Structure formats: structure tokens, C-alpha cells
């Protein structure tokens, strides 16, 4: 019986020329078994204990037909990219997971034996020091989901703050930017900044500046996956998500296969947002005029209800119907009516609803759009590519609660 067959296999597989001759007599140990006393302070360096797989809590079980959908475990693929952690240990890597609603999610974690996971430290898994494989179900709970374009390529750039253990499971100590008087802070030495994402197949090089040196970021093809892990003490937390990495700090330049770059060589001021190269819009084949539909805007108490029939069917999370609304005078800002966030059959009735803000009165004007959800499920922030389905105007301030306006879509 062999206790560690994997160690034997590694030793036997060592190339013959890899074992240098070491001459000289082995020096006798200073002490023999007296080391037992010191072993308590000894840190293991070359073994990784495997713990149980971690799953998100049951109440975070997503619906396969709404939002991001459900991560399809069989689609999970750990990319060949490996990035060392500044403090050592298993390398970092990325895993791509497809969801039931067509999103491509990028999962970040430590990689051991080709599996993506977290380490039992920084308040994870009772700090057991073991490696725990991460369930793909965490993929849709993080910031890393992108809607593939019409050519099937996903573009996403994430700049997040976290810890050396990895992200996903709930931890017992506080990470960067978290606050809770009842919990201690995780070790500051374990603070990490993660810059990762997918720049697509058209990018040939991505460079970043670290310690005054500009160096290329290894890219995993064909997705153009990249990952940078920095040991940076952070006060703030959270993640910034976009479709392409921001140039400035730490990224310096994106170079494309056609020889162009962003920013172009010699450009003044390098801070800028680069459009994803090779991006094929999902709306490219649609004729805007043919998508116009009449809208019905009604008030039910302080609730605005906008309804129409879907000019285009939606069968994944890449598209959604949403609306924006604003008041003439009392509330100048634009309000976002939550998007459909689910599959919709072509011609089926669609209803968008929003609670009107208190103290906002007068005429409400709004626009309903079909939008591309470039980075993940629809959020009521709007922006990005869209086609107008119709406009509505609704007078608020009457006593009647079900007065309706009908307006053509234009």
C-alpha cells in the first residue's frame, strides 16, 4: 500500500536529466528527534490538503429562466492561464461557465489539480488551510457574467478587491470595504486586487505597468482571457465591471491583431476606455422602425405600469426590455424602470412596473427600449446598445388611480 501514490508518480516521472548530481556527504543533523518540539511552528509548503467542495447557501438558488439563469456545471472549463499569488501557494486561474440563459461567466479562484477553488483562510471554511473546490453555482453570484455578442464572443473586464483565499463563500472576517462591528478584519497582508476578464479574440497583447515596468499580461486564447493579481492594501471594496479594461492604471495598452492599438502610440493622456475590438452587436440585424410598438402607460396608486407586445422574442439574458422615465419639473433625474429579466415570446404582452418616487409629481415621460445586457443580467442602470420600442407620457397628480394614456411608439 502506498500512502501518497501521487508523490511517487511525480518522482518516477521526473526526467532523468532533471536530477542534478549532488556530491558530498550528507551532513549529519544537528538534532535527531528533538525536532518534535519545534514542529508546532513548522509550516507546510509542498502539500495541499483537499477539503470539501463549497456550495452557496440554498436560498441563493437561482431560477434557470430569469436573471443570469443557472450555471451549467458541465460547461465549466478551467482556462490554462496560471498566475502566481504574491505570497505563494496554489496559482490563480479562471474558469468559464455558461448559464442556462446564455451568459458566459468568468469565475476566479485558486487552481489545484486543474480544479478552481478557494483556500481555507481569511475566514473561509473555519480557516482549515485546505483547498476547497468552488461550486460553479457561485459563477452567477459574482460580478463576472457577460453576454456573448452575435459572434459568440464575450467581452468583460472586472477590477475587484478581495483576499488571498479567493472569492465566493461567506467568510467570518471582514474583507476590503466591508463593515460590521461584530466581525474582525481579515489580515491586511491578504488583501488582493484582481483584474481579470475577456478581451476577445482580436487582441494580441495587453500590457500593464507594475513597479515602474511595463510588461505583457499573459492572454489565454481564443477568449483573450487575462488575469492580474496584485497585493494592494485596500480601503474600499467591491468590483468595477465593464466591457473592456480601462487603460491608465495599471493597464497601459491593448494591441490588436490588425496592428492598431488603444490608446494609439504617442497618444496624449493614456487614460481611456477602449471599445471591445471585433464586437458584433446583437441588434445589428434589426430594423428599428419595424420594432416600434404602441405602449400603454397606467398608474395604479403610486405605481407606474407600462405594457406593450414584444416585437422581438427573448430567449436568453443577452437582451431585455426596459424603460426610463422622468418627471417634467419636480424630479429632474432619470428613473430606470426594472427590465424584463426573463424570457419573452415574440408578440407576448410585456409589463414593466415601477413605484413612483415620493414627492415626484407632474407629467411623466418615458422611453421603452430593447437593450443589450453587455455585462451580465439586466440591471436598472440602462446604457449600452438599445433600440427604442416606443415612448409614453403620463400625467400624475389626478385623484383617479387607473387613468390610462395610449401613445403610438415613435
Amino acid at each position, binding site marked *: 500500500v502506498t500512502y501518497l501514490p501521487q508523490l511517487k508518480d*511525480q518522482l518516477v516521472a521526473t526526467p532523468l536529466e532533471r536530477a542534478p548530481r549532488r556530491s558530498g556527504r550528507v551532513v549529519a543533523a544537528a538534532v*535527531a*528527534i528533538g525536532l518534535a518540539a519545534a514542529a508546532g511552528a*513548522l509550516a507546510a509548503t509542498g*502539500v495541499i490538503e*483537499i477539503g470539501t467542495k463549497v456550495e452557496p447557501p440554498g436560498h441563493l438558488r437561482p431560477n434557470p429562466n430569469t436573471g443570469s439563469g443557472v450555471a451549467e456545471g458541465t460547461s465549466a472549463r478551467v482556462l490554462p492561464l496560471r498566475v502566481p499569488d504574491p505570497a505563494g501557494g496554489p496559482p490563480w486561474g479562471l474558469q468559464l461557465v455558461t448559464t442556462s440563459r446564455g451568459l458566459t461567466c468568468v469565475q476566479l479562484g485558486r487552481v489545484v489539480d486543474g480544479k478552481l477553488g478557494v483556500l481555507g483562510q481569511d475566514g473561509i471554511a473555519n480557516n482549515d488551510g485546505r483547498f476547497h473546490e468552488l461550486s460553479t453555482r457561485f459563477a452567477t453570484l459574482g460580478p463576472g457574467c457577460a453576454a456573448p455578442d452575435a459572434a459568440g464572443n464575450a467581452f468583460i473586464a472586472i477590477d475587484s478587491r478581495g483576499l488571498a483565499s479567493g472569492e465566493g463563500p461567506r467568510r467570518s472576517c471582514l474583507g476590503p470595504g466591508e463593515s460590521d462591528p461584530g466581525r474582525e478584519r481579515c489580515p491586511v497582508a491578504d488583501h488582493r486586487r484582481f483584474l481579470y476578464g475577456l478581451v476577445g479574440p482580436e487582441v494580441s497583447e495587453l500590457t500593464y505597468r507594475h513597479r515602474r515596468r511595463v510588461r505583457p499580461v499573459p492572454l489565454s486564447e481564443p477568449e483573450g482571457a487575462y488575469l492580474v493579481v496584485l497585493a494592494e492594501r485596500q480601503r474600499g471594496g467591491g468590483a468595477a465591471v465593464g466591457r473592456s479594461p480601462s487603460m491608465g492604471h495599471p493597464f497601459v495598452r491593448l494591441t490588436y491583431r490588425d496592428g492598431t492599438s488603444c490608446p494609439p502610440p504617442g497618444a496624449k493622456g493614456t487614460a481611456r476606455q477602449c471599445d471591445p475590438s471585433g464586437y458584433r452587436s446583437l441588434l445589428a440585424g434589426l430594423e428599428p422602425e419595424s420594432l416600434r410598438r404602441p405602449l400603454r402607460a397606467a398608474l395604479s396608486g403610486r405605481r407606474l405600469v407600462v405594457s406593450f407586445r414584444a416585437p422581438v422574442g427573448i430567449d436568453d439574458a443577452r437582451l431585455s426590455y426596459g424603460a426610463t422615465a422622468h418627471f417634467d419639473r419636480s424630479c429632474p433625474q432619470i428613473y430606470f424602470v426594472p427590465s424584463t429579466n426573463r424570457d419573452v415570446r415574440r408578440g407576448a404582452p410585456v409589463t414593466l412596473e415601477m413605484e413612483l418616487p415620493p414627492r415626484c409629481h407632474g407629467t411623466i415621460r418615458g422611453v421603452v427600449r430593447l437593450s443589450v445586457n453587455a455585462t451580465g443580467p439586466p440591471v436598472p442602470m440602462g446604457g449600452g446598445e438599445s433600440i427604442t420600442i416606443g415612448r409614453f407620457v403620463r400625467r400624475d397628480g389626478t385623484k383617479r388611480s387607473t387613468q390610462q394614456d395610449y401613445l403610438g411608439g415613435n
Partner: protein
Amino acid sequence: MEPWSAISDEDLLQQAGKDRAAFGELYERHERALLGFLGAATRRADLAADLTAETFARALEGCAGFDSERGSARMWLFGIARNVLAGSARRGRVESEARRRLGLKAVTVHPDQLDAIETLIACEGDALVEDWLEDLPSDEAAALRARILDERGYAEIAAEMRCSEALVRKRVSRGLLRLRRQLTGEST
């Protein structure tokens, strides 16, 4: 060709430079003993596995320099294990230089493997150390057992043995020296 099982440890070491399968056979023969020895010293399965890995890596690197006239392959392996143990204790971390030079990856150890190693340590580790101590003079064995295995202070041991602390220190020191000679085959 002779089956590996019919070949002595010393010949396996001689052949390991040309045929890694010979080293695999040597590994299988001595893994249990080294895990038990290093487990007895550290009382931790993960450390025992880590130290065993570095010990075998260092043995693989050094097999061409093995000289059977200076001792058995087993004693040579245990000598390496003690050096790895001593160097690791000095640094506060398990040495990994040989594995790095050989390009070996960290060994992933599953819970059932750790359980098996822990059982080995529990069942055989103490017995192994007791075996070694049996060959020592009783006063030295008692001093070593109290100081090293039970991690008690010199003053406490001296009070119990009704002798001076200096004498306890001397017995521990002599016991360790005798053990080392016994295990490495060094002449007195």
C-alpha cells in the same frame, strides 16, 4: 531482467539514475517508514507528507552519490529525512528546494490519505520512537521521553528525577547523540 522486488535497496539506488522505475520501487519500500518517522517527529500528517516528499526528492537528486560502503540505503534515506527535518525546523517551514529544482508540483493530499497517515502516526509513530528509545540507557531514554515527546521543562523533569537540571540536559544531549549514531550508522 530481474524483477524489482529481487533487487536490493542499494542496487535500486544505483539504477535510479538510469531508470526512474527503480526509484519508484525504493519509494514503495520506504514510504511507510519515513512517513512514520517524520510523523513521529512532527505529530502532523500534513507535515509528515510534506517532509517525506522533500526527503524523496533530495534522495532522487543525490542517488548518484550514494555509497553503499558507508551504510545502508535505509540509513541513508533516514539521514536525509533528519536533515530535511532539521533544516525545516530552523527555517520554520518545510524545505522545498529539491522539489523546486526537480520541477515537482505541490502534492495534493485528500482527506482519506491524511486520515491514513494520521492512523499510521498514531499506531506506529510512538512505537517507532519507543523502539529507538529502548536501545538507549534507561536514564537517557527517560530524559528524552520527558523532554522531547512530552515537551516538559528541564526544571520539572529534574524535580521528578531528583537530580540537577544540568544532569537532565546532559542525559538528553547524550541520548540524542546516541540516537543519531544509532540511526545514521555513525561510529562512536
